[in-house]
C-alpha cells in the first residue's frame, strides 16, 4: 500500500514539474533510456549537467561583470548553456537562455543582466526540485517507468 502511495506521489510530482513548464519532452526521452543496465540514468545525467554547467555559470557571471559587456562572448557561453539545458529537458531555463541570446543580439546589456538573474533563479529552483524528485523516486522503488504526463 505504502509503495503505491509513494509511486503516486512521484508521478504527481513529475506531473507538477511539467505543469509548471519546468520540464519538457526531453525529460521523458531520458526516462525512456533508463533500464536495468542504466537504472539511475536520468539522475546521473542531471547530476552531470549541474556539475558541468556550474562552470558555465561562473564564466557567465565573470563575463557579465565586465564593462562594457562582451556580447559575443556572452552569446557563445549562452549557446552552450542552452544546448546543455535542453538535453535534460530544462524548459524554463532553456527559454530564459534564448531570451538572453536575443538581448545579446540587440546589444542590450541591461536586458542581459536582468534575464540572467531570472534564469539563474529558475536554474537553482529546478535543481532543488529535481533533487527532491529523485529522492522520492528512489524511495518509491525502481518501478518508475517513463509515463507521459497528461
Amino acid at each position, binding site marked *: 500500500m505504502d509503495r503505491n502511495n509513494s509511486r503516486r506521489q512521484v508521478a504527481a510530482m513529475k506531473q507538477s514539474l511539467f505543469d509548471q513548464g519546468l520540464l519538457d519532452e526531453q525529460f521523458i*526521452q531520458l526516462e*525512456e*533510456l533508463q533500464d536495468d543496465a542504466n537504472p539511475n540514468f536520468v539522475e546521473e*545525467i542531471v547530476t*552531470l549537467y549541474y556539475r558541468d554547467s556550474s562552470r558555465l555559470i561562473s564564466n557567465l557571471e565573470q563575463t557579465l561583470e565586465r564593462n562594457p559587456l562582451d556580447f559575443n562572448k556572452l552569446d557563445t557561453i549562452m549557446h552552450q548553456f542552452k544546448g546543455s539545458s*535542453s538535453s*535534460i529537458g530544462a524548459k524554463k531555463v532553456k527559454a530564459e537562455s534564448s531570451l538572453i541570446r536575443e538581448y545579446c543580439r540587440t546589444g542590450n546589456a541591461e536586458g542581459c543582466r536582468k534575464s540572467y538573474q531570472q534564469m539563474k533563479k529558475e536554474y537553482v529552483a529546478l535543481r532543488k526540485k529535481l533533487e527532491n524528485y529523485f529522492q522520492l523516486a528512489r524511495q518509491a522503488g525502481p518501478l518508475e517507468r517513463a509515463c507521459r504526463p497528461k
Partner: protein
Amino acid sequence: MVMDDSTDLLPIGMRVLAVDDDPTCLKVLETLLRRCEYHVTTTSQAIMALNMLRENKDKFDLVISDVHIPDMDGFKLLELVGLEMDLPVIMLSAYGDTKLAMKGISHGACDYLLKPVRLEELKNIWQHVIRKKKSDSKGKNKTNKPDNATSDSCSGLRSAGTENSDENGRLAKKRKDQDEDEDEVKENGNDNEDPSAQMKMRLIEQVLKN
C-alpha cells in the same frame, strides 16, 4: 541470394564517431546511439576526432558532430572529413538557424539535426551510410567484377577508398570465415576483423534469415 536495401535490414554495429564538447549532451547522445545498437566512440575534441579518423579510415561508418566545438570550427571538421575520409557527417546544433543548416549542407553534411536529438531521428541515420556508399560506388566502381549476386550488391557497402581487387578478395574471405567469426563481432578490439565487414555480415545474416 540477392541483397536489397529494404528497411528491415538492421544496421547493428554501425560504427559512429560522436563529437560534442558538452559532456551532458555527449553522454545523452552516446546513450541514444547505443540504444540504436550502434557501436559508439565519443570525443569532446575535433582534433582528437580527426586523429582517430586519420589513423584508420575504415574504422568508422559515420561521424556525428556538434557545429560549435571550441578547438575547431565544426564546418572545418566537416570539410576535412569529407575531403580526407569521404565519410557521411551529420551536424548537430542547438540552434535551428536555417542559414546554419544551409551552410552545413553546402559544406557536405548529409544531415543537420537540432538538439536535443530524438531517438527516432538517430534510428534512421544508418540510411545515410548506405546512400552514400551506393552513390559513391555508382560513380567509381565501374570495373567491379562480381563473383556472384551477393558480391555485386555488397559492393555498395564497401568504403569508397579501397581497391577493387582487394575488395573481392576480402569479401570472399569474410564469407568463408563468417561462421567462425559470427560470435566475435562485438567490440572493436579484434585485430583480424575488418569492422565494416562485421556490419555487412549482420546485414547479410538478416537477409538470409528472411
